[in-house]
């Protein structure tokens, strides 16, 4: 205190920062760590993604292999209360009515469901961000793009999805093969019908950011609009995009399963979680596990993604962060 009083210039000097500056993402992670639900959700999502990617290398059973002698086996845990049940360690989750291994089917089904979910989510994000950025940045495009968004928002989505998938199934199957065609079709219809919320949020943020001084500064030194968008605007709207990405992943997984459940999804020999569930409903009195296992996997994945989105929303909001 006394030196400051004696040396008035010291008060004018810049203080040394007490600790090195931290990146925004470290702050976000610090906040996210306190949200237990988000941690569990994110952990489960990573676990299930790794499981469906590497599962087939660890559990090397062909999901399509028929094994009529060992059909209709129960999961191993049934032996706990029913000594006479047909169980075996070589089929830990049992087999279906054609003797196909259920564990292998669940892994293969998870691959399809997660792939559809991720691809559709990314497609929706790309369209939504593109429309939002263009509408927010270019005034001329704003009116028409937002009217288009409103119109697409008032389309009846599930009926239209059903119509599109049923009607365009055959030609796409013919040109890309039964699985590839269906994958392209489902990803594109889900992506094309779920970009609107992202577009609205991104547009709102861009409209606010555009008026800020740093954009004015960038423009004054002659930065082209394309570069302003890439360098200055997009990094600033990453957080709302990430939140809508989690929601989009959850909706895409549920929509794909719903389509499979209604019988308009992938071909019958190609397992997805929704397909496995739908196929098992007929005999669920005798073999409830065949409905419950894929159902639980869908629900847990979606629950995990939703919790992750909830936590991300809190963590990415700088007004809440640090509290």
């Amino acid at each position: 205190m006394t030196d400051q009083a004696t040396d008035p210039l010291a008060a004018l000097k810049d203080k040394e920062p007490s600790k090195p500056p931290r990146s925004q993402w470290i702050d976000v992670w610090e906040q996210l760590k306190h949200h237990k639900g988000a941690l569990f959700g994110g952990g489960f999502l990573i676990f299930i993604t790794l499981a469906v990617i590497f599962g087939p290398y660890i559990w090397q059973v062909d999901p399509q292999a028929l094994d009529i002698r060992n059909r209709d086996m129960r999961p191993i845990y049934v032996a706990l209360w029913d000594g006479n049940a047909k169980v075996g360690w070589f089929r830990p989750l049992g087999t279906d009515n054609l003797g196909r291994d259920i564990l292998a089917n669940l892994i293969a089904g998870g691959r399809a469901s997660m792939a559809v979910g991720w691809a559709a989510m990314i497609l929706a994000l790309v369209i939504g961000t593109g429309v939002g950025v263009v509408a927010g940045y270019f005034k001329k495009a704003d009116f028409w793009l937002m009217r288009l968004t409103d119109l697409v928002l008032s389309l009846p989505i599930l009926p239209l999805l059903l119509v599109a998938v049923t009607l365009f199934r055959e030609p796409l199957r013919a040109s890309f093969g039964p699985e590839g065609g269906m994958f392209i079709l489902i990803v594109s219809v889900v992506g094309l019908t779920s970009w609107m919320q992202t577009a609205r949020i991104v547009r709102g943020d861009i409209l606010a950011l555009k008026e800020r001084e740093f954009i004015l500064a960038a423009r004054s030194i002659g930065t082209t609009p394309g570069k302003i968008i890439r360098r200055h605007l997009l990094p600033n709207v990453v957080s709302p995009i990430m939140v809508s990405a989690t929601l989009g992943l959850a909706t895409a997984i549920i929509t794909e399963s719903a389509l499979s459940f209604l019988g308009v999804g992938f071909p019958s020999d190609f397992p997805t979680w929704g397909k496995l569930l739908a196929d098992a409903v007929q005999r669920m009195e005798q073999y409830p596990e065949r409905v419950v296992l894929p159902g639980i996997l869908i629900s847990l994945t979606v629950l995990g993604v939703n919790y992750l989105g909830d936590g991300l929303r809190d963590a990415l909001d700088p007004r809440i962060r640090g509290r």
Partner: protein
Amino acid sequence: MLTFTIRRLILSIPTLLFISLVIFLLLQLAPGDPMAQVPLTVPPEVKQKMREALGLGQPLHVQYYKWMVQFFWIEPQVLFDHWFGTTFAEGKQRVISWQTRSPVMDIVVQRMPQTLWVVGLSYIVGILIALPIGIYSAYRQYSVFDQTGTFITMIGFSIPPFFTGPLLIVLFSVQLGWLPSIYDTTLVVTDWATFKLQFFQMIMPVMVLALQTTAQLSRYMRSSMLDNLGQDYVRTARAKGLREGVVVMVHVLRNSMIPVITVIALGVPAIFGGAIITENVFKVNGIGQLLLTALFANDIPMVMTLTFIFAILIVLFNLIADVLYGVLDPRIRYD
């Protein structure tokens, strides 16, 4: 307010026209052929005649125009005739289903009550459960009740209806045997016994749909209550000595209901969409199930009409939500 309502009503006409055009073009671009089921022995020129009889020979814009005339001009006349016993629609061409060769609207009218009963009741049940949960968990924020409520609504949000449906059937129809698993639409309520049957068969479909509504609405109710509980007028109300019940249930609740009511209105079309899956699970022969069977049978006029009815519902309830928002909140007036 009236001018705003009228302007919104007029604006919704181009929206509906655009949607009908999208649906029409989607169905026209689709490669499905209604003659695919006709035996191969039928010569091609006869097939061509059959196609023309279905109205398929004409160019696209003529087909679209004819559908619009049938849907917007002739069908209302039929309805008018039905109500007042007039004969405006006599001998005019209505929208005909390719499956049954009967007018599409007649079938829709037959199927509508089942859907409306199940969907409407589930929505009311969902609202009645969701609002108290939302209010109480906002009032006691971060309490055990709030945490549990958040967890349960998160689960309700994440479990898809095509999983809860079979799960409930296994539990209540198969294991316990309390409730029927199939919705019997031929049941006519005449006395106490049939009423009980009707009640029991509606429990499961209604609860499955209500779970989705409850999960969503209670979250909205909670955050809306939280926004209002921290406001100055609440402190003023408490300071002037109002009882806590009056403060929360009258002052805060009324203000918090404004956004929630619009969410309720906006959610109606979504729950009709969700009913497609629930109807399929519980074998309710409502319009969702009708849409599915029509799709599989390539019955284009039926699919077109049903999808358009869903679109009308969405546009209508968007309009209702907008108008309600202005009516309830005098601060927001659009004119």
